Every structure is written in structure tokens, then in C-alpha cells.
């Protein structure tokens, strides 16, 4: 029966690899060029794993402009969902019905928004504006959960979203 056990193992591994193909690898060197890629892509680009070079803004591709009064969960969520991001329970995750990966939105109230993304290794990483991408929080700890990470003034956790990078539209 060894052949059956081996076959089942191969099927499980193949299934896991098939699901993993949708999850972004933590590969900071693909973003941190200290040049155009790094400087023209922000946390939203990084979260969606899409290098548009436009410093993408939630909703802009759909005609939504976020203003000074929109730095709260509602308006930024509206912009993101207009772009094709889908709100999801952080515990449930995104599953594999589409080629999803998971991101999380946080807010510094009245000031700014910021995104994290869950990588293939199960940890989270992020990219602050034109700075280098990292998987560390403000305290220098690897981010295992953005809800408990040291986020400085970005104290409001809005929630998690699913991204299918082949269908979302950001600009």
C-alpha cells in the first residue's frame, strides 16, 4: 500500500503548490531597487502585488478620489472594493476559489492609510510609501499578524481583504 500513500502525498503536495502559486513570495529585492520601482510604488501597490509605478490610490482607477476627510476605514474600504478587493474575515482567509491573496488595511485616523499583505511563508510584509519593503514592524519584530503588530500611529485596524491580482484594477 506504499504506492497509495505516495500517490496521496503527491496529490496533496501538488494541491498545496497549486494554491500557493497565488500567494506572493516575500521577495523584497523585487521592490527595493532604490530607484523607480521602489519610489513610484506605495503600500497599496505592494499589498496588491502590482507594480503600476503610479503610487496607486484606492478607488482612483474607478474615479474615486480620497481627500483629507477620507482617512477612515469607510472611505478607503469603498475605494478598495471599487478596485476589486473583497472584504473577508481575517480568520477565514481567502480560500482558493480564485487566485487570491490576503491583505489588511489600517488607518492613522484623519491622517493616512496603510496596507499589509500575507505572503507565501504565512507571515506579513509591507512597504511604507517609497521606502523599502520589509516584513518587520516598528519594533523590529517579524509580522505574524498585522492586528497585533507595532503599527505606530496607524492604530485602527479596518479589516482584511482578498486580492486577485489578475482582476483587480489599481492606478
Amino acid at each position: 500500500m506504499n504506492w497509495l500513500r505516495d500517490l496521496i502525498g503527491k496529490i496533496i503536495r501538488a494541491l498545496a503548490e497549486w494554491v500557493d502559486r497565488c500567494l506572493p513570495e516575500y521577495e523584497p529585492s523585487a521592490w527595493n531597487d532604490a530607484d523607480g520601482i521602489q519610489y513610484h510604488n506605495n503600500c497599496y501597490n505592494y499589498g496588491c502585488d502590482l507594480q503600476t509605478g503610479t503610487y496607486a490610490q484606492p478607488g482612483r482607477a474607478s474615479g474615486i478620489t480620497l481627500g483629507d476627510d477620507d482617512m477612515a476605514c469607510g472611505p478607503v474600504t469603498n475605494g478598495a472594493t471599487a478596485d476589486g478587493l473583497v472584504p473577508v474575515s481575517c480568520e477565514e482567509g481567502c480560500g482558493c476559489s480564485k487566485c487570491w491573496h490576503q491583505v489588511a488595511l489600517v488607518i492613522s485616523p484623519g491622517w493616512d492609510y496603510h496596507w499589509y499583505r500575507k505572503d507565501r511563508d504565512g507571515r506579513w510584509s509591507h512597504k511604507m510609501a517609497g521606502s523599502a519593503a520589509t516584513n518587520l514592524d516598528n519594533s523590529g519584530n517579524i509580522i505574524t499578524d498585522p492586528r497585533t503588530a507595532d503599527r505606530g500611529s496607524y492604530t485602527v485596524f479596518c479589516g482584511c481583504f482578498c486580492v486577485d491580482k489578475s482582476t483587480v484594477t489599481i492606478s
Partner: protein
Amino acid sequence: MEQAEGITVRVGIFSGRPNPEMTFTDDAAETIANLLREAIGSNPTHAQPRPKLGQYHGFIITLSPHLAKRFGLPAHASIYEGVIAEPGSKAESGWRDVAGLERYLLEQAVRHEYGELLERVGVDTSEFGEPGSSS
């Protein structure tokens, strides 16, 4: 603005929203280009420190192609905590800001009335005048 000779400097305050920008032309652009040229290549150092979310995270400088060519500079440069990142270095090396470029840009940012924003992200701008002052 004469795009051919201009420099745009983005002030590192926000993570997601577009950051404030300053544009420089003519003598002001040449001053920045000279400070950048003085620093680049003169004193190699480690990578820029890792900025903290919600804190000041330096300046991103974009030179017009003509100016970059004339001064022999890269099209983009960033400076943070006294380190200019080496373009193409995968953000792993840089040069010390021996010319005082970051201080000059902080002073310019205060003059452009970004002092209050900088104060909110942890920069002490008192030595450059009152936050929000246009003088």
C-alpha cells in the same frame, strides 16, 4: 516650470496617500544637484536605516533628464537619516550625506509650509523656523 531643468522632491510623511512635493528650478535646482553630486560617491556607507511607520521617512528626489545628465546624477535619489541610497543597490548600500543635503531639504520643506506635517511625524523643525512659517 521648465521641466528640462527641474527637480521634484517628495517629502516622506505618508505611507499610502501622495506625499507633499516641492519643485525647484534654476538656481534652487542647481543647489540641490550640487549637494547631491558632492555626496554621491564620496563616502560609502551602509543602507539607509529602516524608517518606522508613522514617522518621517526622508526625501525622494527626482531630477529632470536634462539636469541629471548635466550633473552626471541618477534620475532618482532618496535620502534619509543622513544616508543617500545608491540607485540599483537593492537598497543595501549608500553614501553619507557629507554635503548636508537632508538638512537643506528639511529647511526647504519648512519654507514650503510643511513644518506642521513634519512635526507630526517626529521631526523637530524648530531650528528651521516656526512650523508652518513661510519665511
